[in-house]
């Protein structure tokens, strides 16, 4: 190798045969660089002239030294080792990964949106204020609520915001409540948010139909209950038909109802949380509307509330003046800020453009097609997989590999890995926790009947020929990954020495 430098190679190895892609640190070659800066004409004072010596770094900060060509090659090769929605179907139940229209990317890239500093006076950002105000109004229309904050940058942040709203409202009623009720099928973020909101979690079991056991709920209701967190349809993809009764029972003890909007896509234009009696609603814009998930984010988690809770919303909020212009205003009893600025604004712009494109009629179509696909696939798979709650579902359903495990030793995880070899992303596995060997499948509305058919056939092939499942996947950039080893010998950075001390709990 010339000069012993490892950087600068341009080979397609990682795609053409399972070779490793070196880290960018291994590609680094001392003295190589990609950066360039504009000519400014600003005087070129030295570091010593600018900063007191005690603060100045004495050793250079070690970052990769690569050419732009090295960098582009490296990241592009890595991108070829990554499954994504644009590549294929992603039936990840509870997470809702669907195709996001490209027009939303264009909207978020507009210089007039992306180039705005968030501290600019309202007079200079009227377009942004109008966009945010209209988005909030439309989200209220979809949820049947009175007012909304767009600040929470993710669904879980929305949950915590909602719980703090609950806390502030009870405080103003002169009541210090300590408990929040959560179904045993709930997302893990719910109990974690309850704890961070300063409450204790009380779990209510599901009944044999997969819905909240209303009798068990009544046993748990008392004057110490601040509220209940529910999603409807619930985490099994089933509609809580007793929701009116649940709402009345919780309200009777002075509690509030919190709607986890993870599954809002199932009911767009069909029914609204506000009509069901909910007081607080968060929405995951990346699930229900259009914000691609970016490998884990950014998302956006706006919170909408009923009229009595509106004075508590985080602020500032955009409000209209009499002359039709917009200004910022903070609600009178606001719990305070939950984000540095106005939330994940560009994600909000994506969602807004998606709502404009769909309109009221299009959003209803989204729910119809999502529910149709899920029911079709559930019906189709009932001969091959266990369907623990085999009744009409909404946008997703839970299958189980329990029988397959007992008869052929194939676990839900094996099914997931085999599905990768079939060219599909796997469903969510081992969630919800109340279903053994759970496979949680959400086809979404953007997958065609042909894709549904191919997915069903792939799942049938896996069940029909279970041998060798433990060795899957074989056609992916790496084989089955040793997750236990990663936890046992923790290597969290390229600099780390493997540490056995980080043994699992």
């Amino acid at each position: 190798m010339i000069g012993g430098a490892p950087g600068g190679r341009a080979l397609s190895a990682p795609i053409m045969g399972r070779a490793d892609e070196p880290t960018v640190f291994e590609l680094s070659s001392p003295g190589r660089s990609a950066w360039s800066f504009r000519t400014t004409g600003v005087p070129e004072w030295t570091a010593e002239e600018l900063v007191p010596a005690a603060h100045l770094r004495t050793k250079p900060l070690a970052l990769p030294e690569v050419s732009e060509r090295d960098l582009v090659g490296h990241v592009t090769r890595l991108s070829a080792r990554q499954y994504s929605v644009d590549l294929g179907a992603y039936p990840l139940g509870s997470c809702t990964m669907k195709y996001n229209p490209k027009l939303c990317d264009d909207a978020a890239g507009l210089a007039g949106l992306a180039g705005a500093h968030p501290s600019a006076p309202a007079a200079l950002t009227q377009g942004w204020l109008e966009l945010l105000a209209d988005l909030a109004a439309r989200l209220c229309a979809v949820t049947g609520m009175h007012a909304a904050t767009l600040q929470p940058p993710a669904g879980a942040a929305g949950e915590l915001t909602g719980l703090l709203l609950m806390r502030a409202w009870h405080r103003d009623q002169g009541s210090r409540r300590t408990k929040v009720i959560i179904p045993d099928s709930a997302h893990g973020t719910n109990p974690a948010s309850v704890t961070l909101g300063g409450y204790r979690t009380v779990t209510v079991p599901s009944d044999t139909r997969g819905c909240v056991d209303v009798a068990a709920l009544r046993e748990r209701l008392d004057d110490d209950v601040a509220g209940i967190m529910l999603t409807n349809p619930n985490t099994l993809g089933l509609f809580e038909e007793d929701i009116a009764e649940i709402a009345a029972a919780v309200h009777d003890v002075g509690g509030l109802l919190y709607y986890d909007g993870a599954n809002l896509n199932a009911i767009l234009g069909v029914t609204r949380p506000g009509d069901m009696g909910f007081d607080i609603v968060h929405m995951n814009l990346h699930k229900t509307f259009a914000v691609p998930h970016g490998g884990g984010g950014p998302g956006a988690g706006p919170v909408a509330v009923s009229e009595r809770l509106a004075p508590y919303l985080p602020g500032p909020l955009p409000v209209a003046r009499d002359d039709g212009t917009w200004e910022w205003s903070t609600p009178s009893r606001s719990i305070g800020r939950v984000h540095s600025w106005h939330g994940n604004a560009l994600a909000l712009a994506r969602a807004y453009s998606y709502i404009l494109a769909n309109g009221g009629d299009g959003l209803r179509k989204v729910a119809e097609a999502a529910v149709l696909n899920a029911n079709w696939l559930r019906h189709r798979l009932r001969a091959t997989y266990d369907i623990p709650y085999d009744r009409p579902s909404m946008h997703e359903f839970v299958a189980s590999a329990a029988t397959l495990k007992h008869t052929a030793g194939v676990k839900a995880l094996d099914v997931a890995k085999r599905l990768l070899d079939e060219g599909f992303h796997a469903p969510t596995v081992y969630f919800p926790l109340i279903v053994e060997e759970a496979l949680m499948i959400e086809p979404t509305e953007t997958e065609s009947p042909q894709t549904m058919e191919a997915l069903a056939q792939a799942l049938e092939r896996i069940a029909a020929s279970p041998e060798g499942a433990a060795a899957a996947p074989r056609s992916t950039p790496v084989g089955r990954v040793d997750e236990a080893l990663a936890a046992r010998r923790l290597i969290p950075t390229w600099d780390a020495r493997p540490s056995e001390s980080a043994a699992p709990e």
Partner: protein
Amino acid sequence: MGHFVPHTDAEIADMLAFLGLSSTEELFAVVPAALRLAGGLDMAPGLSEADVAAEMGRLAAANAVFPQLVCFAGGGVYDHDVPAATRSLTFRSEFVTAYTPYQPEVAQGVLQVIFEYQTMIARLAGLEVANASLYDGASALVEGVNLAVAASGRPSVWLSRGVNPSWRAVLATFAQGSGHQLVDVPLVDGCTAWPADGQAGAVVVQHPNYLGCLEDLAEARAVADRAGALLVVASDPVSTGLLHSPGVFGADVVVGEGQPFGTPMSFGGPLLGLFACRLAHVRRLPGRLVGQTRDVEGRLAYVTTLRTREQDIRREKASSNVCTNQTLIAVACAIQLSWLGTGGLRELALRCARGARYAREALLAVDGVEPLVPAPVLREFAVRTPLPAATVVERMADEGFLAGIPVPAEYGDGLLVAVTERRTRAEIDQFAAAFEKVVR
């Protein structure tokens, strides 16, 4: 009609027939009639792609941005250049349209970039571990304080007023739930004046601080030791190209805002919360962590690890509720830091400091403009203006400049001005000339 549902009418009819249904309405039979939305959503019908683009273009045009408005505002969000390579690579759809890497065998691309990101952030901080990102600097601060309070077992938090006021506001909001006791520690001459004694769980300082001043981190470490607290440092990551990393002074947790590395100002979001800590605290690390491992055939591979910390497994016992994070923005950050490299990051920090020095001297030459604080500065500085700062910002907009941020009253009436590598000498000279005109 929705543009994005692929089904034909004939296909829908076939699928319904397979289910024994005769209409899509019957799909929703499980929704009680009293709850059905009669007449659909109160919302106009959908628009064509071209009509949406026109409407979004109208809204975008109603905001003043560069070159109509030259930005001298910072306060946590800065007007840096985003190079073509960063933009192009970040927005590859393989990264943009991937989900959380739950199936590592088909997510090695994102996982490896995040592993590289974690390594670079740990080096910037001078600590051993960094997570896979949080929502913004404010959320990173909240999580850093949560970690420190849990690790020290003390709910009292000594919070320097030099920490970004908007981040402190977020911390105060979430303290309503966590019950942390926030103790406001004032600035004297631009730097934190710590209490002489007492006990605390977390000592929190920003460096350089909100007014741009360099804090004494060695003193902050000593204060934390006396108080029995962990030291949480909010660090401007750009400054670490020139300044010692906070880890050098013994910081336990380093948080920061990563937006300067490859992300436009975006009206303040999405941003990128940076979070690093000592290895000893890895069990309390919030959010995702990627680790290196092997596959069954012994090849190097990457995976999210120590998942037992996280909300999806630990539920109410989790140290954090973070699930969705800012992975795509972290990808941009990793690409941008690689593009900069060792020399580029130093040069970036140096250019910011030079621009700030030049602009500060130019403004202080204007009659009636005085320093708000005397301490040394890096890339941001505060001045006292002859007119209220909000008025100055308003009038400067007519001259084509976003002059800065009027600081909250707790700092005295002043204007916070930021200068990045984007600002030319000509822009700064014009800025100072306009300043002279509007404050006269």
